[in-house]
Each structure stands twice: as C-alpha cells, then as structure tokens.
C-alpha cells in the first residue's frame, strides 16, 4: 500500500513521518531535480506493509518553488491509495486550504490534526464530529511529541477504503485536475506568455479567496481560540531574539559557540579517526602481497577515504547546530534580522543559512539556497558560497600554516597558528561578501523581489528529528566526496605508476648514471623512485604546467598536487604525501618535514618559503577545486553558463591573488 504525507511547513509532518517509519527510511531524489525524496515504510496491525512518502511542505497546490511543485506533481501523476494531510491545531484555517485542494483531487484523504497536546494550553477547542461531517473525512488528533494518537492513525490507515473520494469544493475531479495541470508551473518557472501568467495568477488568487470563504463557513462555531488562555510565549521570546541590539548579540554569540564547538569538540574524534585509518593502512599493507595493488589500497584508497571520514565530526557538529536552530524556529528569526543587511550586498536574509553551512561543505549549502525566492539573490548566493572555508580546505590550510607560521603565543595566550587559521575564515567571508557586491553590480536581472517567510512558533527540538537530519547530511557528504576521492586515487595511482619509455627503463638509466660512484642500494632505490615519478605521466603533467605556475612560486610537484586536487581540495595533502614518500626512504619523516626540506631542482632553494605558502593559501582560498560543487551548481542553476563563469572566474581570481601574494612576500 502506498500513501503520501502532505501538509504546510512546520506542522510536524516530518516528525510524524519519523514516528511512523523510524529507521526504515531513505532519502533519494525526484527524477531530474535535487529535491529530497523521503520514503519509508511500516507495518499495520494486520501485517500489511505501508510505503509512505513525505512530500515537501507546501501551503497550497499552486506551487511557488520547485520544492513545492514536487508535491503537486506527485499527487497529480501518482495515485497514492491514501493522502494524509497533516495540519496544526493552532493554524487550522490556513492548513485546511491545502486539505480542501487535495480532497478535490478525488483521492481518499485523511486529516491529522497535530500538536493536540498544545491545544489546551493555547485555548483551542475543536468540534471534531462536526468537522468530520463537513469536511467529509476522518480526523485523527495526534501529538508526535508525545507519540499520542499514532495507534488510532494506523487503524484509520487500515480502514482507509471506507474514506470518501468526493470533492469538497470543486465541481468535479477531472476539471480541477486539468486546471492544476495547466497552471501549476506558472508560479516557479519562467513563462514566455506574460499575459497568460497574469491571468493564471488571477485565477489562483480567486480560487484561494473562495476556498478561504468556504473554510471560514466550516470553521464557524466548530473551532475556537480563547485568546485569554494563550500565554503568547512566542511574542515574549521574539521581543528578545529579534531585538535590534540583543538579537544580533545573541546571533553572533551562537555563531561563536558553533565554531568553538566545531574546532574543539571535534578534535579528539578527528585524532581517533586519523589514527584508526593510519593503523588500518598499515595492517592492510602487511596483509596483502607487496606490489602496486598493495600501494594503491594502502597508500591511495585507505588514506583517501580517511581524509574524508576525518571531517565527519566537524560536519556532524555543524549540522547538529543548524538542525537545532531550524527545529526550534530560531533560524527564521535570523533571516528577519539579517535580511536588510544582506540585501545591501545583493544577498537575501535567507543567504545566511547557506553561508554558515558553507563553512562545513558547499554542497548542502548550495542546496539550502532553494528557498530564496528571488532568482538574482539566489544566484549570487550560489556563486559566492564556495568562498566560505569548507572542511576540505582545512587540511590544506593546516599543513601550509604549520609550514610558514612558527608556533608561538601572541599576548601570551593566542596561538599564532590558530590566529592564522581564523584569518583564513575571515578572508573567506570577506571574499564571499566582496564578490557578492561586485556580482550585484554586474548582474542585471529584472527581479521581482518576493520575500515571504512564515515565522514558525518556537518549539523544543525533537531529538529524533535532529538525529535524522545529522545522519542524513553526514552520510550524503561522505558518499558524495568518497566517490570522488576513490576515483581520483585510482587515476592518480595509475598516472604515477605508468609512463613512457624513460619511465620503463628508469632502473637502467639511473643505475648506469651511478655506475662508477659509491652508492648504497637504498640510496640508489631512492634515486630510481624519484626519477620514476618525474618521468611518470603525472610527472610529465606537472612539468608541462610548471612554466604557468612558476610565477606563483610553485614547482612541478605542487603542480601535480594542484592538478589532482582539482576534483577535491583535500587531495592536495595526500598527493604531496604520495610524491614525497616515493622520493624519501626515511619513513619516519612526516609529510610536513618532507615538505619543509623540499628544494627546487634547478636552484636548490627551498620550495615552501613564506611567499610560496601565502601564495598557496590564497590559491586554495579562492579556486573552486571541487567537482561535487561544480556538479551541484550546474544542477541548481540549470545553466552551464553560470557554472562556467563561477569555475573560470574563481580560477582566474585565484591565480591573480596568488601571484600578487607571492610577489609581495618574495
């Protein structure tokens, strides 16, 4: 049996989904678009399996965004055996708008009124019997918070065959369905025919007004809110949280707490993961027969995957914070506080969430721009979000900073390297905001700035809901990034272990070179390995681009790392590790010390000077080296033009900044 959950945002629809399905849920995509498709299953008393789909929250079947359109499209195209409309007791009138529309599709429809436990406190009384009659449906009162009413709901699902399929407001099913099919795309897609669009909008408007009139007649006498009983906790809290001074102080305080948590709480977990993967590598290396496959697995794939998993604690903590802020209803208040300020930069109040999430990973951040109605503001947000310091930049920054900034205490308590890292975060924000200002001047769109947000009531976050969000987002990151790392490690391994004729004959060439000199076997092997990497395909690529990157202070080895990290920044460190470990026989040396001792082949000068370090930091702060981000930007903008503008624009900017940085500090 297939059923669908529909309802307004913030009604506890997803909570109900979580209660019903528990861990039997998965998130996929609707065909062609990146809207999350949440599906799950559970069993009824009689043993029947029920598949449920949690449709995106929407206020009506006349969608104004792609996310909302999914609900309409699904209901029109698939015929679920039952639709459960989840409504909130407090805002019943508004919730019933969607109910009457879904009912008119001729589908068996059940009405769940959630947050029953809040009704008494808020002075709400509902005449359920009368409602059932007038709305021609079965009504179940639930509280997902207290898991009340769930058994009744399951029973009603089991008996759903008895539900009426009659329309409630429209004349007949087929004409209403046809009208929806003809009109539902006008609200979120560019329409050529402006006259028709305006006509449709008028029809949708009139339909809404008439439905509200109908709903008012149903509610009359059967639904009361005793305002004197309502404590209005929300208004009191709003006075503090949206206060013109206090509001901002609280917001920045929370941000500070969040970053503090990301860096300190995650530390021990990250160390644990780091050590775990190191010993796994070692174990596997000893287990498999020596050879190239062993190298690929123990030196390429395992450290590569480890390089991703190490970010899990940070990403999980970030999403824990974001999920709690969203679940409590606080995030909407931040949007209110920040909107005008962000507008000055060509962004929206709703850009705040993507810009914060970007500090973990740009992929979910860019997906979070979807609820920005104004296309220009949304586009600018998408284009500048990758400047924020995502987790993948951290290992690159960490190693470069440790090479060029000596560790010492400033004013006795500030760690100089931590300060430098903080500086990189500031640089990320400055670059994002600065680029937004410039893009805002350049991009000329006729934009209709429709900005409407509902401020949800404040709620205690449900652990269940927060947990599912954190798990889902983290899983998403690991699998998305994991795939790329795996592919890159294999390609890198192939390119580094194959080459032309010189590569094949490396042993002979090097041996003959040292024929008459005293040299130990170990030293000879090092020379051979070094010669091999230089003449492998990857070495050739590095050498080819060396003239281009020489002005930035890089040698061909850094060139290789830049090429390989094109798909994912974090590969930079791994690549240098591979290249230097091949050259160095003393295994106890860390990557850092190997990098520190690296010299240019021609001049013998140190490679990683202060100037080169700064230049590399700037390069990695700007360049869009993340294949997953490029893919998501293409999907979200649906335009190769903007995807390429972003990719090329950031590459050119990175080169120029790195060049200037190198010149200044040389």
């Amino acid at each position, binding site marked *: 049996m297939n059923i669908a959950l529909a309802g307004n945002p913030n009604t506890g629809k997803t909570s109900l989904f979580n209660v019903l399905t528990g861990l039997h849920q998965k998130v996929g995509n609707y065909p062609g678009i990146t809207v999350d498709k949440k599906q799950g299953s559970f069993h009824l008393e009689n043993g029947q399996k029920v598949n449920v789909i949690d449709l995106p929250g929407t*206020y*009506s079947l*006349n969608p*104004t965004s792609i996310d909302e359109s999914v609900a309409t499209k699904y209901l029109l195209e698939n015929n679920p055996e039952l639709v459960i409309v989840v409504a909130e007791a*407090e*805002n019943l*009138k*508004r919730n019933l*708008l969607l109910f009457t529309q879904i009912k008119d599709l001729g589908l068996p429809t059940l009405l769940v009124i959630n947050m029953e436990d809040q009704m008494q406190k808020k002075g709400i009384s509902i005449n359920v019997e009368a409602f059932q009659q007038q709305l021609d449906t079965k009504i179940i009162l639930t509280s997902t918070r207290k898991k009340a009413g769930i058994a009744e709901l399951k029973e009603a699902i089991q008996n759903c065959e008895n539900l009426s399929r009659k329309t409630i407001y429209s004349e007949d099913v087929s004409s209403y369905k046809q009208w929806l099919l003809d009109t539902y795309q006008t*609200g979120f897609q560019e329409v050529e025919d402006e006259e028709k669009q*305006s006509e449709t*909008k*008028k029809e*949708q*408007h009139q339909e*809404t*007004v008439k439905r*509200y009139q109908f709903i008012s007649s149903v509610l009359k006498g059967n639904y009361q*809110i005793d305002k004197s009983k309502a404590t209005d906790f*929300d*208004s009191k809290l*709003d006075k503090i949280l*949206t206060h*013109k001074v206090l509001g901002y102080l609280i917001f920045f305080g929370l941000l500070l707490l969040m970053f503090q948590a990301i860096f300190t709480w995650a530390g021990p977990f990250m160390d644990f993961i780091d050590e775990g993967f190191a010993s796994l590598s070692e174990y596997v290396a000893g287990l498999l027969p020596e050879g190239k496959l062993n190298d690929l697995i123990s030196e390429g794939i395992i450290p590569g995957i480890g390089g991703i998993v190490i970010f899990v604690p940070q990403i999980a903590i970030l999403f824990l914070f974001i999920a709690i802020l969203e679940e409590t209803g606080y995030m*909407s208040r931040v*949007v*209110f*506080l920040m*909107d*005008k*300020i962000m*507008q000055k930069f060509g962004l929206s*109040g709703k850009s705040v969430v993507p810009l914060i999430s970007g500090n973990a990973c740009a992929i979910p951040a860019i997906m979070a721009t979807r609820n920005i*109605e104004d296309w220009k503001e949304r586009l600018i947000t998408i284009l500048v979000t990758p400047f924020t310091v995502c987790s993948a930049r951290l290992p690159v920054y960490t190693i470069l900073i440790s090479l060029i900034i000596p560790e010492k205490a400033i004013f006795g308590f500030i760690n100089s390297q931590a300060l430098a890292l903080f500086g990189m975060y500031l640089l990320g924000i400055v670059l994002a905001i600065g680029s937004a200002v410039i893009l805002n001047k350049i991009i000329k769109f006729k934009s209709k*700035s*429709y*900005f*409407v*947000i*509902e*401020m*949800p*009531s404040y709620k205690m976050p449900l652990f269940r809901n927060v947990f599912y969000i954190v798990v889902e987002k983290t899983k998403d990151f690991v699998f998305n990034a994991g795939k790329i790392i795996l592919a890159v490690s294999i390609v890198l391994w192939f390119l580094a272990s194959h080459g032309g004729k010189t590569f094949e004959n490396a042993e002979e060439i090097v041996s003959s070179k040292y024929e008459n000199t005293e040299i130990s076997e170990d030293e000879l092997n090092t020379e051979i390995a070094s010669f091999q990497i230089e003449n492998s395909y990857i070495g050739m690529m590095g050498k080819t681009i060396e003239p281009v990157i020489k002005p930035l202070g890089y040698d061909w080895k850094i060139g290789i790392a830049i090429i390989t990290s094109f798909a994912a920044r974090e590969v930079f460190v791994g690549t240098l590790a591979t290249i230097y470990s091949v050259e160095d026989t003393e295994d106890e040396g860390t990557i850092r010390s190997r990098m520190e001792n690296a010299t240019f082949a021609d001049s013998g000068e140190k490679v990683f000077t202060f100037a080169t370090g700064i230049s590399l930091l700037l390069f990695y702060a700007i360049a869009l080296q993340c294949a997953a981000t490029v893919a998501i930007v293409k999907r979200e903008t649906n335009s190769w033009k903007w995807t390429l503008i972003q990719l090329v624009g950031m590459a050119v900017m990175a080169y120029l900044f790195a060049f200037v940085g190198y010149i200044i500090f040389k």
Partner: protein
Amino acid sequence: MFLHQLKKGEKAHIKNFDIHAIPLKLVELGCLPENEVELLQIAPLGCPYYFIINDTRVVIRKETAKQIEIEKII
C-alpha cells in the same frame, strides 16, 4: 493608508491590494481583505516587517507592504 505606515504594536484591517504586486504565498498565508493584521517588529535599517496576519506570523519586505492598503483599528 498602507501596511508599511503602520507603527509597532498597531493593528489594522486589510482593505485591498493589487494581486499582481503581491506574492500568492502571502494570500495563502491569510493576507485577505477584512483580515486583521498587527505589526510586531521592524528590523533595524527599516526592513523587513514582521506581522501577525490571520494568526500567522509572517515577515515581508517593505516594497510588498507598500502594496497593501489597510484601515487602522483605533
């Protein structure tokens, strides 16, 4: 009088608006003629506006508020 002219804490009834100038979503949230509206808060720098319309808490920008004609409740 228009919605953006309301002061903090004041209430009004919605009178009229051009449907092409305001988003459908706002209508769906309950911004309909005769419904009551109260201004709760204006963000620093004078925008956006935070209202209660028809028991729903809604935030809109000034340019949208300018489009909605109201009658103040005294």
